């Protein structure tokens, strides 16, 4: 055997191993710090207490306010991104000319390349004042504008994945629908979207996963007040924002306060892990339906 080949093979193996090693170490750090956290604060307390005040004198360790904040901003984002993204996908597939499509698709992708910190400032300095002009009770920091802007950010994710899913539906089905006298709209919503539903669902789940983990926009525009509420007009705090807040503060290393971010991180990780696996499972189960 040539030595060169061996060396190259070894290098390739090493790069593969590094990614696994890094992932494993992250999980290990998360786990070990979380375990230490949960040895001091019981999981029951963590899940059932209604307040999250680990940095105050009167410490409460209920994760639910952060989960509620995350859920709220994510729900708003999806409520914005799903209808718009799906409409774009349908438009590109059923209506747009091929040439128009080749122009608009890269433009859409640009939305995904804007740094999230820019989105965050956009939410805080443009969207919030705009919304305040007709929603009087809207606070300066709020879940609504952060959620809306996050929705805009994930539109390309939903539109491009859904577009792929819809265009993967066999042409014969579209022809069947047209052949029966369906209008374009009836074809799109009655046949194409249902047939592509698993792919569309995957796009939504990945978008949710992205929104749950999104940090910058919510940290800038949604506030830093953990609050168990579904009111989009007041300041809230998401899991990610909390982690940023503590990481950048002067909480002593190794203290219980410090470990809260690992417990919060663990919670976040469990969410995104489950979502990504769910999407993987759906993809696997349904993608070969027409082959």
């Amino acid at each position, binding site marked *: 055997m040539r030595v060169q080949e061996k060396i190259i093979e070894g290098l390739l193996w090493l790069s593969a191993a590094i990614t696994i090693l890094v992932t494993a170490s992250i999980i290990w750090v998360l786990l070990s710090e979380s375990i230490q956290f949960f040895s001091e604060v019981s999981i029951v307390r963590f899940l059932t207490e209604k307040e999250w005040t680990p940095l105050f004198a009167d410490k409460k360790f209920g994760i639910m306010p952060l989960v509620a904040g995350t859920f709220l901003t994510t729900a708003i984002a999806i409520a914005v991104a799903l209808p718009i993204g799906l409409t774009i996908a349908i438009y590109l597939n059923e209506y747009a000319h091929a040439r128009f499509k080749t122009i608009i698709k890269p433009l859409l992708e640009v939305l995904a390349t804007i740094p999230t910190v820019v989105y965050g400032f956009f939410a805080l300095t443009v969207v919030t004042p705009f919304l305040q002009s007709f929603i009087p009770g809207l606070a300066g920091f709020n879940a609504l504008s952060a959620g809306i802007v996050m929705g805009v950010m994930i539109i390309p994710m939903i539109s491009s994945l859904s577009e792929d899913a819809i265009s993967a539906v066999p042409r014969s089905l579209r022809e*069947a629908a047209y*052949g*029966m006298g369906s209008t374009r709209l009836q074809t799109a919503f009655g046949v194409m979207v249902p047939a592509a539903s698993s792919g569309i669902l995957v796009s939504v789940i990945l978008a949710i996963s992205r929104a749950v983990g999104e940090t910058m926009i919510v940290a800038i525009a949604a506030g830093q007040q953990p609050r168990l509420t579904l009111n989009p007009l007041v300041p809230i705090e998401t899991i990610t924002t909390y982690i940023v807040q503590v990481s950048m503060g002067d909480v002593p290393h190794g203290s219980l306060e410090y470990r809260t971010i690992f417990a919060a991180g663990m919670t976040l990780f469990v969410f995104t892990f489950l979502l990504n696996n769910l999407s993987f499972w759906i993809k696997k189960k349904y993608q070969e339906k027409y082959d």
Partner: protein
Amino acid sequence: MTKKQSKLEANNLDAYYGDFQALKNINIAMEEKAVTAFIGPSGCGKSTFLRTLNRMNDYIDGFRIQGQILLDGRDIYATDVRVDELRKEVGMVFQKPNPFPKTIYENVVYGLKIQGIKDKKILQEACEKSLQQAALWNEVKDKLDKSALALSGGQQQRLCIARALAIQPSVILMDEPASALDPISTAKIEELIHELKKNYTIVIVTHNMQQAGRVSDHTAFFYMGELVEYAKTKTMFTSPSDTRTQNYITGRFG
């Protein structure tokens, strides 16, 4: 050639895909409640022509036609014609069975539902009637709520025919409807075509000349975008007037 009224007519029809001319000056009149077969080698334009009859080519970029296609004397490419309405009149069955990934029942009543018909009784009656007509009722009557994709290929194709019949078209276009099926299923489809022509005008594209001979009343032979010969099927198969037709029928090319 025919004393019966012509249902579908093409006058000086040219069709283009971009710069490529797919159909050259087609003139043909198809008889009502009869079967007209289009034969010819691959790429001869027979499928293109079939698809102009219900404007199925409309969504292909760069496709355009010149000339006229008349359905009951009315130009189907006129600006005031709604394509979706036209296709309710001119149904279509495709080469590969293409049932929707829905239940058998939902497949059959799809066309009625998109017309806004919601009355369960009407839908159920139409479903049974169409499946009876398509000679599929006895095989599926106990599993109407099962997925159409669970049926065999031949059954799926008859389901697609039932689905087309449910919207009560007057013309049914069939694009090689049996080419993806086994011989027994093919025989069933052919039998069905025989039955259906009592009430419907049928236009069928086929690669299979024996099939054209068995099912059709008239046959049109297409070659390189031209309609070479159009005659009674019997005449065409026994004494073709064009040498190209003769060569094709006797299997010298194609």
